[in-house]
């Protein structure tokens, strides 16, 4: 038995153990015991992934009663990388869960489904054939659905979220199933190596491509399949949301990588354009919605759509450029997309854990009612801040390096040796740059808002005022996550090299480490060493700090309650800017896209037309995709459902005539 096989088997055994623990342990100790086993399960995933990434081999067959092609688990390097990423998030989420799970969250179902969820997620990248891929994919979906259900089963909104989530997951699943089945039909087998023999230029391959793109895009929360996200993630507790948004989306990306790297690596250029369009629209739409959201979890949820959009933008650019023979830029785009995936996993899980900590401490997710948490929850604030920097792609976090690399790939992509590679590329690349730039700008605003409103200034409600820091066991994953965000940003070189080896052997991106841990993408002349950068910044800081300390010794700071008061005198905490007002200028700018509904109510003093007693302004931004795309379809279906009842109206004569007509039709057909 090789190490890899042991790792795969170990995960399975740990799952069994976790299930047993969840079912058998008493409620009081359940969180500690089950949470520890879940952590171990995820840790086993990290180890297995690392073995696979470093080139370990081995396979595990799943027996099956149906005469299918063998179901074999044998993660390749890419699978190993993804397994590592999702398992790492799993470790953070499980650790956090130990501390945060109380009453409902410590139920048998909760821990059982957590283990199943992690297990399914960790083994999807190990599959080497369609059926086992789908098997673990659905185990993952089942686990996450049950996990949602396990928490707050009494809340009405959970029911709605659950239905949306299941239906959208199943939609993705069916897209993937149909796409893979189509390829398997062409290839005559369900192994991924068999699927790779399909000619990417046949129309069936393109049809399968579209289906798979939608399926995996749905899991990665891309527009227009993202509608479940803003409903589901706010309902999930912090660690569950972290696991879903930090890890599960990566499975969607993995699926896309599987298709575009392993199975159909040389698709036509229009595939790339389509993926880029999907990614670009998702990125813009996601960040726009995030920037105007007032609920912290909704904000984070939409931001996932944005980040995954950027990842797909990179993937699409890679496909397009590869079709145009701009290999170096294509490889760089691919590496950038994967870097972004990695960094997103780190910062998004930390952010969601932070949100979970805030929810626990303040019992409130509405930014408009938070504030001043920075001094009350310093650990959470610091971790959230670091992760928010990553999400805003500020130097030198991991998010920054990834976006930098993506931009480099894009601006070097449209030309090879000064020659324009194709019309499609020369149109797509500048637009992509613009999309990324606008996205990055809005992301900046979004996370300044999220951090600034929640953690800075004065508490806007009593709950926020009484918030206390979370226990140590919950701080550990927060800090770990924040460290990951920073460290991943400082080590782009080794990371890029690892990614380069993961997408091999078919693709061999020309990246290497430079300086301390900097990255050098030689094909596109892009060099960056964040460590040097940090050192330079540190050097510059020295004289400033000297001046600062000298000045501070002589002229100490005075503390005063609201020294300047903005020029006014009656400042109360609720007069501060809120998240909603923060986003107000943006809502106005993007009025046509967001289509907010405003309601202004003016109460006059007595009979006066001029003296106003109170003004009540209400503004809500709905998800345009949902209201314009899904609602009409759903309404139509509901109406159809009512109409269809007439077919089954209870009259036996009607039923008999159905049979009679069927008989007549069959008779006529057989005599034709």
């Amino acid at each position, binding site marked *: 038995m090789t190490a890899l096989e042991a790792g795969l088997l170990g995960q399975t055994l740990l799952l069994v153990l976790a299930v047993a623990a969840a079912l058998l342990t008493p409620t009081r100790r359940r969180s500690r015991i089950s949470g520890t086993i879940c952590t171990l399960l995820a840790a086993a995933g990290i180890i297995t992934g690392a073995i696979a990434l470093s080139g370990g081999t081995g396979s595990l067959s799943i027996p099956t009663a149906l005469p299918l092609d063998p179901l074999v688990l044998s993660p390749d390097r890419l699978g190993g990388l993804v397994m590592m990423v999702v398992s790492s998030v799993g470790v953070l989420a499980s650790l956090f869960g130990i501390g945060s799970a109380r009453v409902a969250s410590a139920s048998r179902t909760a821990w059982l489904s957590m283990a199943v969820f992690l297990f399914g997620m960790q083994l999807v990248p190990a599959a080497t054939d369609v059926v086992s891929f789908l098997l673990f994919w659905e185990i993952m979906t089942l686990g996450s659905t049950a996990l949602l259900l396990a928490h707050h089963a009494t809340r009405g909104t959970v029911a709605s979220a659950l239905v949306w989530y299941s239906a959208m997951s199943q939609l993705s699943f069916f897209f993937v199933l149909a796409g893979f089945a189509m390829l398997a039909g062409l290839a005559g087998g369900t192994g991924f190596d068999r699927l790779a023999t399909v000619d990417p230029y046949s129309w069936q391959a393109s049809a399968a491509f579209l289906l798979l793109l939608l399926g995996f895009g749905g899991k990665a929360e891309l527009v227009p399949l993202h509608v479940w996200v803003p409903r589901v993630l706010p309902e999930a507790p912090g660690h569950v949301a972290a696991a879903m948004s930090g890890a599960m989306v990566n499975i969607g990306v993995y699926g896309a990588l599987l298709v575009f790297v392993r199975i159909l690596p040389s698709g036509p250029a229009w595939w790339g354009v389509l993926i880029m369009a999907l990614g670009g629209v998702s990125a813009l739409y996601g960040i726009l919605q995030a*920037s105007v959201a007032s609920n912290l979890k909704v904000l984070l949820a939409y931001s996932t759509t944005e980040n995954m959009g950027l990842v797909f933008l990179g993937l699409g650019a890679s496909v397009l450029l590869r079709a145009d023979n701009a290999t170096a830029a294509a490889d760089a785009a691919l590496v950038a997309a994967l870097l972004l995936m990695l960094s997103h996993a780190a910062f998004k899980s930390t952010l969601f854990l932070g949100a979970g900590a805030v929810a626990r401490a303040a019992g409130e997710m509405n930014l408009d009612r938070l504030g*001043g948490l920075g*001094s009350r929850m310093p650990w959470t604030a610091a971790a959230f801040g670091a992760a928010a920097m990553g999400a*805003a*792609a*500020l*130097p030198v976090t991991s998010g920054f390096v990834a*976006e*930098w690399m993506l*931009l*480099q790939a894009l*601006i070097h992509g*449209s*030309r090879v040796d*000064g020659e324009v590679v194709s019309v499609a590329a*020369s149109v797509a690349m*500048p637009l992509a*740059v*613009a999309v990324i*730039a*606008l996205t990055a*700008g809005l992301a*900046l*605003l979004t996370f*300044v808002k999220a951090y600034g*409103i929640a*953690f*800075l*200034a004065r508490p806007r409600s009593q709950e926020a005022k009484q918030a206390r820091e979370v226990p140590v066991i919950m701080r550990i994953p927060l800090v770990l996550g924040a460290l990951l965000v920073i460290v991943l940003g400082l080590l782009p070189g080794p990371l890029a090299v690892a990614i380069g080896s993961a997408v091999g052997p078919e693709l061999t991106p020309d990246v290497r480490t430079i300086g301390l841990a900097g990255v050098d993408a030689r094909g596109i002349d892009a*060099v*960056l060493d964040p460590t*040097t*950068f940090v050192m*330079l*910044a540190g050097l*510059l*800081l020295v004289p*400033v700090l000297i001046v*600062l300390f000298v*000045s501070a010794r002589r*002229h100490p*700071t*005075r*503390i*005063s*309650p*609201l*020294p*300047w*008061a*903005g*020029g*006014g005198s009656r400042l109360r905490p609720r007069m*501060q*800017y*809120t998240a909603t*007002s*923060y986003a107000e*200028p*943006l809502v106005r700018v993007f009025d046509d896209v967001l289509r907010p509904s405003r309601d202004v109510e003016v109460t006059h003093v007595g009979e006066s037309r001029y003296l106003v007693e109170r003004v009540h302004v209400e503004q809500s931004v709905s998800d345009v995709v949902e209201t314009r795309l899904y609602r009409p379809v759903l309404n139509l279906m509901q109406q159809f459902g009512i109409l269809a009842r007439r077919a089954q109206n209870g009259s036996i004569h009607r039923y008999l005539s159905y049979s009679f007509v069927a008989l007549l039709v069959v008779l006529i057909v057989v005599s034709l």
Partner: protein
Amino acid sequence: MTGVAAIAIALVQLVLFVFLAPLLIGVIRQVRARLEGRAGSGIWQPWRDVRKLLVKNPVRAVDSSWMLAAGPVTLLVSSLLLCALLPLVGTLPLPLIPSDLFVIVSVMLIGVVALALVGLDAGTAFGGMGSSRHMTVAALVEPTLLLAVYALSIPAGTSTLSLIVETRLENPAVIISPVSLLAMVALAIAIMAETSRLPVDNPSTHLELTMLHEAMVLEASGRDLAWLELGSWLKLAALLGLLSNLIVPWGVMTDWSALGVVIGMGTVTVKILLLGVVLSVGEVFLAKARLFRVPELLAGSFALALLAVTASYLVA
């Protein structure tokens, strides 16, 4: 060898700009005052302001956090980084961190974020308002900024600003090509917005409902305010320096020599001050735009930048 030279140049740029930035503001204010028929406070007044602020006790609100102290320093350091990285006196790139366009923009954004957080941390309505508007403008400026430099990078084949400047020096025809002209106009508008100049923001007013920058620094005092002001000035100076070197690249040092350094320092000082004069003259004739007109202006500059990129495919 080039590494050491590059570090030396970076140091020279830093020292020069820390000296030059307040002076530039002084010149701008003085020119404007004269044009408006006022006597003005002299071109050294900004220097005196900084010195005065450094010897005052800063006053902070009870509820404010460490951000009120750290933010200004961050802004200052980010501006200093700009001065070190941009090709101002010379075009020798630092090893491992070239003056890459995207890195530059990100460094600038660190300052933007620090300022915005400082604005929020005060816990007043004005601070939040300024922060909100500031971030909105920054978000909308970014596409223009990146696309404009993307257009400029196409002739050079790289996004490294030093190389772009060198290319323009070697091949001056590039400067007056339509691509370049469109891109420069777009870039100029973006820089005006980014540094809170007219018509986006009015740098010389307080307590106006439409102000951006001044609203954020309203609660800062003492050295906090000094860092904020100095950081903002440095940013303006560095960006004007970049703009001037892109328009008129001559005088920039491309190979290390003592004379070259002196020439480089001299030319860049002259170029920046001249640009400052032009700026203040322009501002006399401009009125501040309504806040909700600003996006239109930025959209216009974005269109110009996009046009520039597209033109590069048509012309080239």
